[in-house]
């Protein structure tokens, strides 16, 4: 374990940006990823440890016009208790409901789940299908600047994102889906609680009779990062959701994914799961 030379808990976003600008910072909020990764040596601590929990700008779920903004410090429990999330972002609510345990939902934050960038991160698949953007703030040249990036462009590799070392992820923003839209999430694991997903599937679309439009599908734990599934989406987009379309879609899904074999499942089993569970989800959407 490397030595921490400086601990800081800034009270404003600007102070945090100054700390980041000085460089060599490990950021934490809930600590549920940083602490175990620090103990196992997976995470090499930087000389400065920054606690971002006291920055009020990172809190709250707000709606302005057609956009919903979720502050980076929002915990899984807060998302579960949000009426707005439950009613309009079902896939995200479902993912939070299947997230670890009560103790971890009380501590873990959405910003942390995103920045940890696990291919199995529970909220990432729903956020991808809900067209989420991440909001990043930094002070690289002495002035506070903020940029927004589509979440689908944010992940680079397991544990790696396009966040610059001088930046802080302050929020995630999503367009408020029309009332007639659907969003679904399914996580497969061996037990209901505290499980890292073997595979996860997110699905969002606008429903027009038996046809789905603006189809968004994402998969977790089947590639180095959570991914959108463009071939699967194209197979469903604007077509009547009949058996033939569903068959084409699950065949396309096999081309969108690149699973590996690890302790949780083999490559073959993950492919089987994606095929069978995506099929089940699509049938469920069609027959509802």
């Amino acid at each position, binding site marked *: *374990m490397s*030595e*921490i*030379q*400086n*601990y800081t*808990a800034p009270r404003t976003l600007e102070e945090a940006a100054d700390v980041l600008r000085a460089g060599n910072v490990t950021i*934490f909020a*809930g*600590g*549920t990823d940083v*602490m*175990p990764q*620090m*103990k196992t040596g997976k995470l090499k*601590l930087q000389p400065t*440890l920054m*606690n971002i*929990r006291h920055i009020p700008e990172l809190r709250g779920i707000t709606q302005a016009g057609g956009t919903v903004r979720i502050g980076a410090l929002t915990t899984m*429990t807060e998302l579960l208790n949000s009426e707005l999330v439950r009613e309009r972002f079902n896939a995200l609510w479902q993912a939070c409901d299947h997230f*670890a*345990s*009560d*103790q*971890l939902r*009380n*501590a873990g934050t959405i910003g942390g789940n995103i920045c940890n960038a696990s291919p199995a991160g529970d909220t990432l698949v729903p956020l991808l299908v809900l067209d989420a953007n991440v909001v990043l703030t930094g002070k690289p040249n002495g002035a506070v600047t903020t940029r927004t990036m589509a979440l689908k462009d944010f992940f680079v590799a397991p544990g790696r994102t396009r966040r610059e070392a001088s930046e802080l992820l302050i929020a995630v923003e999503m367009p408020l889906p029309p009332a007639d839209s659907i969003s679904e999430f399914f996580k497969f694991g061996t037990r*209901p*609680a*505290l499980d890292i997903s073997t595979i996860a599937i997110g699905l969002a679309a606008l429903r027009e009779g038996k046809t789905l439009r603006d189809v968004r599908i994402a998969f977790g734990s089947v590639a180095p990062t959570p991914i959108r599934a463009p071939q699967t989406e194209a197979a469903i987009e604007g077509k009547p959701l009949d058996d033939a379309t569903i068959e084409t879609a699950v065949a396309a899904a096999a081309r969108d994914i690149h699973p590996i074999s690890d302790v949780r499942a083999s490559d073959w089993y993950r492919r089987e799961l994606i095929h069978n569970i995506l099929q089940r989800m699509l049938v469920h959407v069609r027959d509802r």
Partner: protein
Amino acid sequence: MSVTVDIKFKLNGVERRATVPAQMSALDMLRDRVGLTGTKYACGEGECGACTISVDGQTVNSCLMFAADCDGRDLVTIEGLVTSPLGESLRKNFTKYGAVQCGFCTPGLMMQASHLLKTHPHADRDQIKRGIEGNLCRCTGYKKIVDAIADADIDAA
């Protein structure tokens, strides 16, 4: 040596101060600095719930919480819980129903049970099972634990 942090927090209703290494967990601080060993260390990675404490009214795994992050917060451990009517009711029930064998998971389970009953006073058995899903018991098979929580005196919550 790593840098230390001066913190001030409330522990079981009493204001306290501590100086802790920046990388220390809240669990290590409670056990090794404060000397309250009711909160248990087991897995050290948030899988088992033996180290469950309440922070600002929410239960967390203290093994995953930085001690430095306790600054300004309100902590309750099993030592504080048992002085409350709900804690006493849970303690009696865990004994009455035989929900304790080795006892190592018991403090964490009682902390989590009290949080569950405060937020869901009329929790049914399924809600109780769901509420304690982050707590492992390797002895009892959970039935007696659920019995003990289901019969707790919710007026005490």
